[in-house]
């Protein structure tokens, strides 16, 4: 079974997630602070870390950064009550492979954990919306020579279907491609988000007054 560590500063929430995931995946540990989380993840080497975005002492971003130094291959799934675009995009850019909200059901969460563990990316409809929004902010005719700065038509189409609430296999059926191809497109979008210099993203951030 997939091994999971839960990082969240609310003990009640950790207990809740543990109970919901019981029997679906193997929760091998939990942590409530940044230091605890880093030590726990490095010691237990779980398949997936369920990471809260908002925590005291730097939050999920800090955990991601410190674990990445010691265990670069560690996979993270951001699990947050926050749906402020800046939080979500920041944690995805920092290396989390997916983002789901805390109202997700236990089964869906277990499914997302398994997919992350298999190397896939998990985009909730809301995350897909944020990403589309971020990339659309640069839709004005700007010279863009770096192909990382843009989504392909197909990637955009896949994201729009995710935002519309379709499952991967339904998207595959509608676009006449295989589920593997849908996964590949989603992973490509994730890579672009994490690697690209994203001058559009920074302009998007400026528009939202996130950066002076």
């Amino acid at each position: 079974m997939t091994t999971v560590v839960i990082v969240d500063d609310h003990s009640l929430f950790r207990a809740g997630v543990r109970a919901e995931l019981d029997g679906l995946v193997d929760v091998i540990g939990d942590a409530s602070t940044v230091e605890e989380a880093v030590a726990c993840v490095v010691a237990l080497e779980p398949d997936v870390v369920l990471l809260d975005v908002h925590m005291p002492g730097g939050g999920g971003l800090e955990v991601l950064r410190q674990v990445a130094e010691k265990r670069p291959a560690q996979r993270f799934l951001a699990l947050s009550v926050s749906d402020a675009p800046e939080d979500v995009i920041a944690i995805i850019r920092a290396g989390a492979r997916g983002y789901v909200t805390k109202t997700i059901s236990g089964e869906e969460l277990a499914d997302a954990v398994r997919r992350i563990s298999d190397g896939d990316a998990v985009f909730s409809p809301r995350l897909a919306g944020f990403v589309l929004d971020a990339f659309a902010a640069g839709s004005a005719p700007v010279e863009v020579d770096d192909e990382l700065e843009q989504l392909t038509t197909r990637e955009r189409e896949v994201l729009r279907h995710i935002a519309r609430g379709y499952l991967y296999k339904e998207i595959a059926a509608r676009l006449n491609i295989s589920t593997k191809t849908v996964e590949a497109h989603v992973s490509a979008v994730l890579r672009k988000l994490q690697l690209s210099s994203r001058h559009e993203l920074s302009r998007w951030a400026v528009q939202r007054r996130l950066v002076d």
Partner: protein
Amino acid sequence: MAVRRDPQHGYLGGVCAGFAARVGIDPLLIRIGFIAAVALGGVAIPLYALAWVLIPAEGPERPSVQRLLTRSDTWLVAAGMGCLTAAGLLLLRAWDVWFVDDRFLWPAVIAATGGALIWRQSQTAPERVAERARLPRQTVNRATAGAALVVGGALIFLYVNDALAPARDVVLPVLVILVAVAIILAPWWIRLVRGLADERDARIRSQERAEVAAHLHDSVLQTLALVQKRADDPREVAALARRQERELRAWLNNTRPSGEVTLASALEAAAAEVEADHHVPIDVVTVGDGPLDERAAALVAAAREALVNASKFAGPEPISLYAEVADDRAEVFVRDRGPGFAVDDVPSDRRGVRDSIVGRMERHGGRATVHSTPGHGTEVELVIEP
């Protein structure tokens, strides 16, 4: 209706054509009148030039002077204003119109340059100040430089005209005394300013705290009290929780300026209402945003109808509402995971969808399509194209 220049139908700046359009007669008559005025005395020519510069052209363009004053390259504008003043005064001198010697010319040029700087700054500053908490350093620099130029110009003028000597006798003692007093009072003054700033910060903090407390009290605590009372009705409790979550998020994020109603916020409001009325969860995802004009309002109304429809058939899964707005094009998808139906089998006398969704969209130049397959839910696609 204001007079507008009409350069497209004019020979020069379109001033005559503009006046003709305003009065409603043939431009030729105005032009003949204008030429007659030129023949009688030259004053019509500068008047024409003035009208050319001051009257805005047809369309959104502003008058040339105003455009010049609100350009972003302030320093260039100031320098240009200095050159213009110099040119104007030199021209007057060349014509012997007015006695202008160097003792007047150069101070006037310097003062005009500084004046242009300050003017320009005052024209653009208000928007910037509203946007940011404090004045940008650039604004302060320009205003200071402008003031220095104006004062400098005035001083040079006084100096070269020997008007400063008596003034110096008065100003010097006053200045010395002022400096002495400033040195004595400075510590108190600094402490006073610092104290005021601290007090202001503390007041702002306590006001913010009071506002947060008031909001939590009105919203979250009320909802929690309701949840405790209705603990035996899980559907109602879930609905209350979702509504409260939505409100709290809107309040915390505060993403849109208050008072401004946009397409995305109207869609969110419609979804919130349907959610509250029909006790079904609705996940709203919006990309981009646009103004809520007549067509957008029709789109929202149709989307609302589609949500109400979906709420009747949706299972426990939330309904998805996805809206994408970009470049005058707006698309909305409303999707439920209910039983679905075969679109072709619906009897043609069922008017609900046809009138309130498809018909409404078509009346406003858009279109609506219903996709449904038995067992795979239903999706309504609403599109407005430019």
